């Protein structure tokens, strides 16, 4: 299953990547599972790890860890927002 993943702000800097097209392993079905999969990549990616303050969007809507992934989805990970 292919999805697009975007990273913003301090998280983009930590992982050294703004966006990628990713072929998600078959066992990854949710946003939370995708986050855990990415966090295990190694240096920099621990910024997505357990306990870190990370927000996520699925197809440009704020979404929780339980949100189900589908092929072609646009996923984004980012720190809590600070606009206004």
């Amino acid at each position, binding site marked *: 299953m292919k999805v697009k993943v*975007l990273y913003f*702000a301090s998280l983009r800097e930590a992982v050294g990547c703004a966006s990628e097209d990713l072929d998600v392993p078959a066992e990854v079905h949710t946003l939370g599972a995708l986050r855990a999969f990415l966090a295990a990549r190694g240096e920099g990616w621990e910024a997505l790890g357990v306990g870190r303050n990370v927000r996520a*969007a699925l197809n440009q809507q704020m979404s929780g860890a339980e949100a189900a992934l589908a092929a072609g989805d646009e996923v984004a990970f980012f720190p809590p*927002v600070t606009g*206004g």
Partner: protein
Amino acid sequence: MSVSVSVQEADFDTGAEIAALSAGQPEVGAVASFVGLVRDTSEGSDVSAMTLEHYPGMTEQALEDIVAEAMQRWTLHGVRVIHRFGPLLPGDQIVFVGVAGAHRGESFEACAFIMDYLKTRAPFWKHEETPEGGRWVDARESDESAAKRWSEGWDDIEQRR
């Protein structure tokens, strides 16, 4: 009635935006507005410049969703939201929220509601330059509690019905 949201690099004319909210609408009796500016200090450090990053596409949708929710909660005659991105300097305008209503109550409340929700739901991130170097601004707990007061109030109203 005019409802519009803009996400832009360019500055905006507050007076013109406020005037437009009531133009040609004699039923409007109260226009409330908020303008957010770049401060020159943050967390005890001087701030010489700021850059606002956002999530193109989602940003516009998030702001439109917030405005739509405000329109459901209050009877409004117009809403204008402008949020800038890109490089900014102390004193620069960041955000404008203007609300037109019949009376001040709904205009004040809707304006505060839109700002509180924008602070926690619109995908913007501030990066500031200080003498100690560049740093990302941390989200504030007080912004979360400011947004929550609206949902708690709303739940109370729902339960009383």
